[in-house]
């Protein structure tokens, strides 16, 4: 194994079912270090499920999945170790409402990594600056707009210094103006070399920021390529999907 080119995420023929309904029907997908991969597709195409498999929120029945050196098919995969390497941001932010922005951001570093309180404060300042929220350290989530809350959620994940970031439809609950500020924060991360996978409905964003776009359809990777593939779809399904998008 050569370290440099070893993919950070590798799906191989991954199958996942809920009861008798197979939602992922053999996914093959690789994410190289530093790469930004956008998963697009209709609701129910399996893109969120695939993303949630990456940090072990969903388990799968067959196939292989390696993430940051963790073998997720293994019976005894250490999910807590995995989650120190993989951050995730959700559509509904899921900030802790009883904690200030700073406490939200520093809870996991303090409790999981044993970071001291002075160091944690410094860490909070650093990651909140990255998402442009240095002035909101002492605010509570309910005092922030949706876009600000989502950026705090991003900062909260960054504070664990993950090697890989997952974004699950993080702008779907936001109006266009707030969507912009969140997407810019993600763009900045991408340009800093963060490896990331994002499920998104923002086609223009996927095209501009992603090194690789993955179109999923009916539980399969239907078409994949660089961002510009959205301008020239090879399959009828993708053509129809982006038809009124770009």
């Amino acid at each position: 194994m050569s370290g440099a080119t070893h993919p950070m995420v590798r799906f191989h023929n991954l199958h996942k079912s809920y009861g008798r309904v197979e939602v992922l029907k053999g996914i093959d997908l690789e994410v190289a270090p530093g790469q930004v991969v956008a998963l697009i597709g209709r609701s129910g195409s399996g893109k969120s499920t695939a993303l949630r498999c990456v940090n072990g929120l969903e388990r799968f029945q067959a196939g292989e999945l390696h993430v940051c050196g963790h073998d997720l098919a293994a019976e005894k995969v250490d999910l807590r170790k995995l989650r120190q390497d993989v951050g995730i941001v959700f559509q509904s932010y899921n900030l802790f409402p009883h904690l200030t922005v700073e406490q939200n951001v520093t809870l996991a570093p303090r409790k999981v990594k044993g970071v001291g309180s002075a160091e944690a404060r410094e860490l909070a300042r650093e990651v909140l600056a990255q998402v442009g929220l240095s002035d909101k350290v002492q605010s509570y989530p309910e005092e922030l707009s949706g876009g600000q809350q989502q950026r705090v959620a991003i900062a909260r994940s960054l504070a664990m210094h993950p090697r890989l970031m997952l974004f699950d439809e993080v702008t779907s609950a936001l109006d266009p103006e707030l969507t912009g500020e969140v997407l810019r924060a993600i763009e900045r991360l991408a340009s800093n070399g963060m490896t990331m996978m994002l499920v998104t409905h923002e086609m223009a964003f996927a095209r501009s920021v992603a090194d690789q776009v993955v179109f999923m359809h009916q539980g399969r990777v239907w078409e994949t390529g660089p961002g510009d593939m959205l301008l020239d779809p090879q399959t009828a399904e993708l053509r129809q999907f982006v038809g009124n998008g770009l």
Partner: protein
Amino acid sequence: MLGLTVQQIAYIFQGAGWTIVLSLLGFVGGTIFGLPLALARSARARWLRVISSGLVQFIQGVPLPVIMFVVYFGISIGGFEVPALVAAGLAMTLYAGAYLGEIWKGCIQAVPKTQWEAAECLALTKPQRFVHVILPQALRIAIPPTVGFLVQIVKNTSYAVVINFFDLTYSAKVINNSTFKPFTVFTIAALIYFAICFPMSVMARRFERKLHRN
């Protein structure tokens, strides 16, 4: 005053003091017993849920005076002579614990599942998720119904009269027996109960409104 001597009125108030003591015992004991019950009721392990829910169902299905009798005479059968306060305190603990456990179970489950998930994704251990993320939110939700239930505890301590525990109801009964002024005596007792309970009801309502505003 009202046809009662100062000593007689003081005697009634003395009983009220013991009502408060028993209420506190019931609340503290109920908390110690109810919190693990709440956790067990919302645990993942099935056997924990079955045992704890059986316990809750049983206690809730027995009238409090009967619990008082069972505890009081149950302990004496074992050959131990216990003061009525201990028996009453134990009975109140069982009673309050069963109800508080149910209330708190609901509060824990009222915290959205996504909060567990977010905490899990930050690599927190299960106890850490509970202590730092779920519990503080559940506590906030729990304050109004808990304070509301305190009123039930205070009122229901009066059942301890069945095992001759000296409380407000008991002292009122004694004074009535010697003065034969039941209306006056029990009205005084009623007013004292009300004076203890009403502020708590008001507080519970205020907490409730505050919670809904946020």
